[in-house]
C-alpha cells in the first residue's frame, strides 16, 4: 500500500511540476499575481510528494519487499541495515528518484528563501526549475520506474554490488547529486535573467550562494569518491581520469569558474554575459555527466550499465536545456551591458585569467573524454584516451592557475600595479622557493614533480595567509590579531579554500612522486624490509562475515624493532553477487600511509603480499575538505544572509499595479 502510494505520488509530482512550469511563466509574462504565486505552492507540494515517494522506496528496501523489481535486483535480507538504506540510491532508478527529490528541494528552497526576489523574477526561476523537474520526472517514470512490481516475487534478492557496500561510496552519490542538481538553480537564475534582459549586482549576489552550495557539495562528493577508490580498489590510485570521474569533474571546474566570475558581477557589474554563459554551461555539464554515466556510451569503471533508450532520452534532455539555454543566450546576451570598467592589471583581470584557465581546462577534459566517440564516428579509429593524455594535457593549466592565484587574490579592484601589490607576497614566494629547494635536495635524482608540487603548495598556503593578514590593515601586532576575528567570513572562506587547493596540490605531487611499493611472496612468519619498515606476515585466516567470506591476513609492521602497527588486510567474496573485493589495510598518518594488500595463496604455501608506502596521501582529501570548508565559511557570511532583506536586492522593484 505504502509502495503504491509512493508510486502514485511520483505521478502526481510530475503533474505538479508541469503546473509549476507553465502557470508562473504565463503569470510573469502577463503580470498576474495569483498565477505567479502558484509557483511557490507548487514547488513546496512537489517536494512533499517526492519526499513521500522516496520514503516509500526506502521503506520497501528496509522491509526487503522483493515484490519490487528494484529491491530484488539490488538488495538481500542478509545485507546490513546501513546498506539496505543506501542501496536505495545504489542503482540507476533509485538514484534518479533521489536526483528528482533534490531538484524539488532546490526548487522549494528558492520558493522559501527567495521571498525578497522580484515576484516576476522568482516566478520565472521557479518555472525553469519546474521544467527541469518535468524532464527528469518523465524520464524516471517512463524509462526507469523504481516502483515496478514483479509478478512472482523471489525468495531473496540478488544483493547490492559489493563494491558499493562501503561507507565512503554509500554517501558519495547524495553529495554529488546535490552538486549536480544545485547547478540547475544557477541555470534557472540565468535563464530568468535572460528572459527579463536584466543582470545586476543583486543578481550576482543571488546566484552566488546557490553556486557555492553546489560547488562545495560537489567537492565533498568527488573527494569521497576519490578516497573510496584509494582504499577499495587495492593499489592506492586516487584518480583515474575515467569518463564517470570526468563527468563530475567538469561541472566542478566550471562551477569554480562561475563562482569567481559571479563575484565580478556582484562587485563590479562586469563580465555579465560571460557569467550567464558559465551558469548555462555548468548545468549543461551536469546533464552531459548524467548522460555519460547512465547511457553506457563510454565504458567506465563505475557507470550504471544501461540501455540505449535511456541514453537517447538523456541526450534529448541535454540538447533541449543546453541548446535552448545557449540559443536564448545568443539572442539576449547583447542586452547585458557591462557597467564597471577596469584596467587589465586588476582583480577583475586576474579573475578573467582564472576563468580562462578553468574554462580551457574543462574543455580539455571534455574533449579527452568524448574523443574515443568522435574518433570512432568520424575517423573510424578505435582508440583509448587514458590517464597519460590527461596528465600531460590538463596538469599545465592547474600549475598555471596555482602560480598566478596568490598574486591575483591580493590585486586591488579596478586598477593595480603589480609591483606594489606583489610586495607583501615576497615572503611567501621566498618560503615557497626555499621549501622547493629543500625537497629537491632531499630527494636527489627523482622527478621534478615533487619539488614543483612543494613550491606551488607552499606558495598557495602562504599566499592565502598573507591575503588574510593584509585584511587586518595597519597597527600593532595585537590589534591586527584581534581584527582577524572580525574579517568577513567570505574573506576567511576565500583564504581557506585557496589554502586547501594548495594542500591538495602538494598531496597529489608528493603521492605520485614518492609512492614506494613492494610486491612479493611471503611465507607465514617471514619478515622483509619495505622502505624504512620491517614487515612480518604473521597469519592468514578464513573468516565469515554477515554476507561475505574473507581471507584475512595478520601483518605486523615494525620500524627499527619497534612495532608500528598490526594490520589485517582482507580479500572478500560476496557469494550472492559472486564478486570478490580487496580490502586493503591502511594505517593512515599525517606524513605517510602504510597500505597493505593480501593476494593469492601460492603453490609453495606462501601468499602474495603488496606493501605500499604512500607519503602525504591524506593531504589530497584533507585539502579538498578544507576547500569545501572555505565554501561553507563563505556561505555563512552575514552579507549573504542579510542581503535578502536589504534594499540593494532584486526585491526592490514593486510590481506595477494592474
Amino acid at each position, binding site marked *: 500500500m505504502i509502495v503504491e502510494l509512493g508510486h502514485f505520488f511520483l505521478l502526481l509530482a510530475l503533474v505538479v511540476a508541469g503546473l509549476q512550469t507553465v502557470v508562473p511563466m504565463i503569470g510573469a509574462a502577463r503580470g498576474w499575481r495569483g498565477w505567479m504565486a502558484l509557483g511557490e505552492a507548487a514547488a513546496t507540494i512537489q517536494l512533499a510528494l517526492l519526499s513521500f515517494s522516496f520514503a516509500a522506496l526506502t521503506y520497501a528496501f528496509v522491509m526487503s519487499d522483493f515484490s519490487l523489481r528494484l529491491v530484488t535486483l539490488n538488495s538481500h535480507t542478509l545485507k546490513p541495515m546501513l546498506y539496505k538504506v543506501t542501496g536505495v540510491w545504489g542503482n540507476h532508478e533509485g538514484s534518479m528518484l533521489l536526483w528528482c527529490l533534490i531538484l524539488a528541494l532546490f526548487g522549494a528552497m528558492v520558493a522559501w528563501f527567495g521571498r525578497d526576489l522580484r515576484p516576476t523574477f522568482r516566478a520565472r526561476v521557479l518555472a525553469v526549475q519546474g521544467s527541469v523537474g518535468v524532464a527528469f520526472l518523465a524520464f524516471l517514470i517512463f524509462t526507469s520506474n523504481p516502483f515496478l512490481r514483479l509478478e512472482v516475487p523471489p525468495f531473496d534478492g540478488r544483493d547490492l554490488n559489493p563494491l558499493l557496500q562501503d561507507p565512503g561510496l554509500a554517501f558519495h552519490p547524495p553529495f554529488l547529486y546535490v552538486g549536480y542538481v544545485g547547478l540547475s538553480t544557477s541555470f534557472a537564475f540565468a535563464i530568468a535573467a535572460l528572459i527579463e534582459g536584466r543582470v545586476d549586482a543583486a543578481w550576482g549576489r543571488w546566484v552566488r550562494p546557490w553556486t557555492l552550495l553546489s560547488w562545495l557539495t560537489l567537492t565533498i562528493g568527488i573527494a569521497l569518491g576519490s578516497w573510496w577508490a584509494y582504499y577499495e*580498489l*587495492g*593499489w592506492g*590510485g586516487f584518480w*583515474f581520469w*575515467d*569518463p564517470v570521474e570526468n563527468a563530475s569533474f567538469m561541472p566542478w571546474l566550471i562551477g569554480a569558474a562561475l563562482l569567481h566570475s559571479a563575484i565580478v558581477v556582484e562587485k563590479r557589474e*562586469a563580465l555579465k554575459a560571460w557569467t550567464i554563459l558559465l551558469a548555462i554551461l555548468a548545468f549543461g555539464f551536469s546533464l552531459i555527466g548524467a548522460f555519460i554515466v547512465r547511457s553506457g556510451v563510454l*565504458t*567506465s*569503471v563505475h557507470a550504471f550499465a544501461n540501455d540505449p533508450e535511456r541514453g537517447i532520452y538523456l541526450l534529448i534532455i541535454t540538447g533541449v536545456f543546453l541548446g535552448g539555454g545557449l540559443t536564448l543566450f545568443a539572442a539576449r546576451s547583447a542586452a547585458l551591458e*557591462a557597467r564597471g*570598467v*577596469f*584596467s*587589465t592589471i586588476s582583480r*577583475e*583581470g586576474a579573475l*578573467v*585569467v582564472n576563468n*580562462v584557465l578553468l*574554462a*580551457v*581546462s574543462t*574543455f*580539455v577534459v571534455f*574533449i*579527452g573524454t568524448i*574523443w574515443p566517440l568522435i*574518433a570512432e564516428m*568520424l*575517423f573510424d*579509429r*578505435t*582508440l*583509448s*584516451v*587514458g*590517464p*597519460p*593524455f590527461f596528465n*600531460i*594535457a590538463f596538469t599545465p*593549466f592547474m600549475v598555471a592557475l596555482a602560480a598566478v592565484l596568490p598574486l591575483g587574490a591580493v590585486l586591488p579592484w579596478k*586598477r593595480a600595479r603589480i609591483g606594489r601589490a606583489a610586495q607583501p607576497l615576497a615572503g611567501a614566494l621566498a618560503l615557497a622557493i626555499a621549501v622547493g629547494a629543500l625537497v629537491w635536495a632531499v630527494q636527489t635524482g627523482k622527478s621534478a614533480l615533487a619539488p614543483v608540487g612543494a613550491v606551488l603548495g607552499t606558495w598557495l598556503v602562504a599566499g592565502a595567509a598573507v591575503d588574510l593578514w593584509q585584511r587586518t590593515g595597519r597597527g600593532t601586532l595585537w590589534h591586527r590579531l584581534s581584527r582577524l576575528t572580525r574579517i568577513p567570513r567570505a574573506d576567511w572562506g576565500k583564504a581557506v579554500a585557496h589554502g586547501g587547493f594548495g594542500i591538495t596540490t602538494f598531496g597529489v605531487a608528493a603521492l605520485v612522486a614518492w609512492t614506494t611499493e613492494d*610486491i612479493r*611472496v611471503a611465507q607465514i612468519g617471514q619478515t622483509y624490509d619495505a622502505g624504512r619498515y620491517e614487515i612480518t606476515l604473521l597469519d592468514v585466516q*578464513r573468516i565469515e562475515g554477515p554476507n561475505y*567470506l574473507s581471507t584475512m591476513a595478520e601483518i605486523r609492521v615494525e620500524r627499527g624493532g619497534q612495532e608500528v602497527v598490526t594490520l589485517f588486510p582482507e*580479500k572478500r*567474496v560476496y*557469494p550472492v553477487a*559472486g*564478486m*570478490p573485493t*580487496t580490502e586493503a589495510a591502511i594505517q593512515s598518518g599525517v606524513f605517510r600511509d602504510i597500505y597493505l594488500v593480501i*593476494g*593469492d595463496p*601460492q603453490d609453495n604455501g606462501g601468499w*602474495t603480499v603488496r606493501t605500499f608506502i604512500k607519503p602525504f596521501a591524506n593531504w589530497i582529501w584533507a585539502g579538498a575538505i578544507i576547500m569545501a570548508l572555505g565554501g561553507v565559511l563563505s556561505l555563512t557570511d552575514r552579507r549573504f544572509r542579510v542581503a535578502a532583506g536589504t534594499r540593494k536586492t532584486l526585491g526592490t522593484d514593486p510590481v506595477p499595479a494592474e
Partner: protein
Amino acid sequence: MRSVLLALMLLSAPAAALEPNELLEDSALEARARDISQGLRCLVCRNESIDESNAALARDMRLVVRERLLAGDSDAAVVAYIVDRYGEYALLRPRATGSNLILWIAGPVMLILAGGLAFGYLRRGGAALAPDPLSSDEEARLRRLLDDEG
C-alpha cells in the same frame, strides 16, 4: 553449506594484478616494464591499464611486454609490438598522428583563442577607463568644430 561457499570463493578468486612471479630480476628492466604497462590498456577491462588489472588478458600482455624487453627491444619497439597485435585501442596515450592531432592541439589552441578574446576584452575595459588620445585628424576636426561654435 560452508564448504560450498568456500569452494565458490576459491573458484571466483581472480588472479590479482601484477604478481611476484612476473617480476623481472633486472630492476632497471622491471622499472621500464612498469612504465610501459601503465600506458597500455587492458582490452577486456573498463578503463584500466594492464598494470592495474586483474584480468587474465592483462597478465598475458604484461608477460609479453617483459618478454620483448628481455629480448632486447626498446620501449618504443615493445609498444609498437603490442599495437601491431592489439590495435591502437591498447594505447592509453593516443598517438599524436592524423586526426588525433586535433585532440592534442585542442587545449593549446583553445587557450590561445580564449586568451586572445580575454585580452581584447580587458584592453577594451582599459580603454574605457583611460580613453585613447585623439588622433591628429580628430584633433583637427575638434578644433574646427570649436572654432565654428566660437
